[in-house]
């Protein structure tokens, strides 16, 4: 008994208490505030699990811990996030963007935050870490994990936390930024929606063609975009309904459980509690804010030349964070005018943001890998 107490005292670190508080906060946000519970809850519990003195959940000396083994098996080689992309691809309906392909331009504009943050982060971190931090602006967890891992960033843990936390905070981040840079008159702009049928052939060819185009331009992104589009092809082909359903539910859920708790294995007190973590969290917020600004300002610039004006709020949905960003913009439109239905436009921009963010990740890899 005395030996156990001595061991505990010898190996206890006051920073564990801070990490427990961070873990508890994530669990609280997941359960009480319903913020990305599928990820924040496993992550929160995992943080507590790995921040116990001599925790057997992670490798200690020669003794291998299960979370470290899972990390090597699924995160270090980018396997988990890529498999998750199959599920995400199966969930996405590209219908709105196929009906109005021009909406994709907003998805491109809303990647501005990534490149703006790249510049900001490069002043504080070396180039590969700066690029990994910038990709928080992709507002897409799997892309952030893959890029950070491929660039061998030293800050994978904080980058994951920032990416997923800000994705969960999209409903809180988007409205004030939009209100700051748009006028009431702009927010009241109504956009006509003409529903048109998209042929099944187009829906099937779209994921294949996107994979080829993105793969040719940014070969390093081909696994990212390829897995996403493979999931979508399963959904749209019409002969693999059971696989599509499994990818959307069982596969995505299974990977998500392991993803959250495995990422936590990188969040030990000695790695996580540093000023660089705070700086990364700050830069992540900058990336999100400038994504929104990029999308909204692009719409405002287009409005100078267009006869039929665009509601600039839809530009904010290009931040990715599918499908939350699209829904938030739609709700904001309804708040301004209960008859202003922006859903189809904002969802179109939102799925384009998903494609553009993956391409941005590929470009970052092409530049710096």
């Amino acid at each position, binding site marked *: 008994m005395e030996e156990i107490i001595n061991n505990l005292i010898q190996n206890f670190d006051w920073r564990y208490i801070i990490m427990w508080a961070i873990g508890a906060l994530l669990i609280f946000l997941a359960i009480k505030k319903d913020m990305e519970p599928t990820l924040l809850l496993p992550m929160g519990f995992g943080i507590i699990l790995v921040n116990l003195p001599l925790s057997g959940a992670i490798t200690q000396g020669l003794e291998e811990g299960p979370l470290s083994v899972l990390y090597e098996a699924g995160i270090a080689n980018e396997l988990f996030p890529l498999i998750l992309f199959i599920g995400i691809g199966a969930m996405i309906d590209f219908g709105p963007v196929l009906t109005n392909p021009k909406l*994709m*331009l907003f998805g*491109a504009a809303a990647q501005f935050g990534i490149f703006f943050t*790249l510049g900001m982060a490069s002043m*504080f971190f070396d180039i590969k870490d*700066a690029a990994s931090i910038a990709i928080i602006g992709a507002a897409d967890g799997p892309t952030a994990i893959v890029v950070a891992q491929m660039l061998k960033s030293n800050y994978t843990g904080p980058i994951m936390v920032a990416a997923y936390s800000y994705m969960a905070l999209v409903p809180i981040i988007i409205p004030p930024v939009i209100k700051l840079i748009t006028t009431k008159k702009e927010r009241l702009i109504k956009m006509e929606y003409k529903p048109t*049928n998209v042929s099944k052939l*187009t829906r099937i060819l779209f994921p294949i063609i996107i994979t080829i185009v993105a793969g040719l331009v940014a070969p390093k992104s081909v696994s990212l975009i390829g897995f996403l589009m493979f999931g979508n092809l399963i959904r749209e082909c019409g002969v693999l309904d059971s696989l599509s359903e499994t990818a959307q539910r069982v596969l995505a859920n299974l990977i998500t459980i392991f993803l959250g708790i495995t990422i936590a294995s990188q969040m030990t007190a000695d790695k996580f509690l540093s000023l660089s973590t705070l700086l990364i969290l700050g830069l992540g917020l900058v990336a999100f804010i400038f994504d929104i600004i990029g999308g909204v300002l692009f719409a405002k610039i287009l409005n100078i030349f267009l006869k039929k004006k665009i509601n600039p709020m839809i530009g904010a949905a290009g931040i990715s964070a599918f499908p939350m960003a699209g829904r938030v913009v739609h709700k904001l439109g309804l708040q301004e005018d209960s008859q202003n239905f922006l859903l189809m436009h904002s969802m179109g921009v939102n799925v384009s943001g998903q494609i553009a963010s993956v391409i*941005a990740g590929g470009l970052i890899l092409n530049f710096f890998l």
Partner: protein
Amino acid sequence: MLNILTTAFSMIGDIKFNPKALLDMLPYIGEGMLCIFIVIGIIILITILLNKITSKDK
């Protein structure tokens, strides 16, 4: 001012402050945004084309 900031940041743990790095990044920022718009532009054109070609199959 920049010198003061550089010194201040270099004193805080592993963080360094190198404002010149921002200038080195400007070409990547421009090239990155341009590339995204080009790729998305190509995808838009292909999608429009696809819609036209396959419109008979609706």
